[in-house]
């Protein structure tokens, strides 16, 4: 297990920039999800880390030592491909023990290790099964065990769950998390599924067009996204251009602070906004805006409102869990808690 540093990684395919100056640090024993849409360069990144692809520029360090010139087989970054790729001519035990056999590890040690790993992935007794005798989920688990067998410096999982169907996916997700907690393996986990990333990873790196937009723990990405892309990725958001807010609605001492934020956008999640019939008395941490209910949608335990606010020239979304009932067209005051807002670059 190692600490991983990726520095200024750049990769071109046919003069098309696929990775652009990518930087990422992963602490020892940490599981980072690389989250991004299809084609943004996730698999390419993993292949470069494992050495299967050469980077055009940049450096990769394991525990502070550059590995960029080491051939794949000496790097110890084990990639588990999206398609499992169990060797079809070897049975489960031989597949799992493959890496150890290549290292010349003793047969009896290999046997014990296989047994232990099959136990870990919940497939005890499956030693002599051939890949074609295993289901997709079982193949995936054997592939995971095979990667773990060689004690990798970093484990690279390329969309390990996306080929499975819904209930298996949940099981596999929990298994990956369980194994991670047990083994504390430095892991990069590629996915394009937001929920998967939120549930499995310690940290999430949001990727877009060969760049990392933001790296952080899930809560940070939800509450303090650095731009609209990340904000939208993790849920609904209200955006208010600070330059558009009328002076008279703003708390006076906040206004001074906002002088420096003139060009920024204030982002606030809909569930943080509180609606009220009466205008709240002055509180420097709450921005109070007058609005008119445009739309009300009832959704069981919560109600979605769309409120037109003239002071900011736009409509804001509000999610109300108190099941208040403001009719369409009625006037309300919106209370925006400024300590829960994020300020994004325009």
């Amino acid at each position, binding site marked *: 297990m190692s600490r991983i540093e990726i520095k200024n990684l750049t990769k071109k395919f046919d003069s098309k920039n696929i990775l652009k100056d990518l930087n990422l640090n992963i602490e020892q024993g940490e599981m980072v999800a690389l989250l991004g849409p299809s084609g943004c360069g996730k698999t390419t990144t993993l292949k470069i880390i*494992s*050495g*299967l692809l050469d980077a055009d520029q940049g450096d990769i360090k394991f525990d502070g030592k550059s590995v960029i010139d080491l051939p*794949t*087989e*000496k*790097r*110890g*970054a*084990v*990639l588990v*491909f999206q*398609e499992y*790729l169990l*060797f*079809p*001519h070897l*049975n489960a035990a031989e597949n799992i023990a*493959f*890496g150890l*056999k*290549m*290292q010349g590890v003793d047969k009896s040690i290999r046997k014990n290790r296989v047994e232990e790993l099959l136990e870990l992935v919940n497939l005890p007794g499956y030693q002599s099964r*051939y890949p*074609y005798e295993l289901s997709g989920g079982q193949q995936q688990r054997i592939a995971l065990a*095979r*990667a773990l067998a*060689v004690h990798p410096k970093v484990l690279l999982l390329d969309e390990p769950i996306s080929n499975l169907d819904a209930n298996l996916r949940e099981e596999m997700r929990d298994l990956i998390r369980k194994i991670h907690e047990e083994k504390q393996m430095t892991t990069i986990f590629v996915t394009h599924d937001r929920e998967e990333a939120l549930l499995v990873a310690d940290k999430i790196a949001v990727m877009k067009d060969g760049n990392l937009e933001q790296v952080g723990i899930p809560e940070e990405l939800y509450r303090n996204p650095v731009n609209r892309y990340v904000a939208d990725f993790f849920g609904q958001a209200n955006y208010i251009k600070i330059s558009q807010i009328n002076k008279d609605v703003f708390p006076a001492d906040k206004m001074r602070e906002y002088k420096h934020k003139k060009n920024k956008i204030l982002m606030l999640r809909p569930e943080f906004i509180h609606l009220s019939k009466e205008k709240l008395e002055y509180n420097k941490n709450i921005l109070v805006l007058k609005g008119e209910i445009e739309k009300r949608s009832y959704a069981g335990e919560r109600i979605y409102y769309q409120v037109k606010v003239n002071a900011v020239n736009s409509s804001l979304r509000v999610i109300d869990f108190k099941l208040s009932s403001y009719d369409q067209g009625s006037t309300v005051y919106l209370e925006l808690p400024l300590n829960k807002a994020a300020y994004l670059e325009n």
Partner: protein
Amino acid sequence: MKEKRSIYKIISIYALVFLFAFPILLLFIWAFSGRWSWPNLLPQTLSLSGWRYFFNPANGALESLATSVIIGIAVTFITLLISIPAGKAMGLYEFPGKEIIKILILAPIIIPPLAVTMGIHINFMRLGLADKFIGVILVHLIPTLPYSIRIMTHTFEGISGKFEDQARVLGAGPMQRFWHITLPLISPGLFSAGILVFIISFSQYLLTFLIGGGRIITFTMVLFPLVNSGDRMLSSVYSLVFIAAALIFTLLMERVLVNTEQRKDHFYI
């Protein structure tokens, strides 16, 4: 509807069996026949004289068979040895001019061999390869390589380079990857190519005749004149031996190359 289809199926299976089996049956009857004059449906007497002639060392039949088998094995070995890297390059890598090379590789089986054999003969004489064992082996590579490279190209396309990549990230070096991953995965392709190559080499007549200059006597060179001369009994004996040799080679290749587990696998061709 379903019954109708199964009737067609049965008829075509019988037709095929008949087409393959009948000529061989005829060969058998001929090979053991003694006197067999028109209009008898079956031979009047049976005899082993054809086989006696065949096994008599003085007639050189066994020696020519051994020559053919040795040449065939050598040709198969060399052809496969060349076809593995060639097939890998053609099947897995992209490089400029790949399409042209693909066509060029097929050229020897598109252009009639006689057209080039003369030129090759002259060059072989200059290099001192004519009339020699090694010359015959080399010239057999001309008709065998195109098929073999083609088969190996498709084999590599089928397995893709991903299994090797997977072995690589697990720490396997180049030789380990070849022995433990590539070779087992391509063995069905090697098997198909190997049989084809052996049979092509085994049935060569013209190339052997020209380059061997009559000094390298292979089995076909003994068989062809017999067929021409109209000695049906002897040519049947030789033909049966010919078939048996090819069959035995096929079975041996299968033993060596095809992993029992792979027979159940979708890769098995």
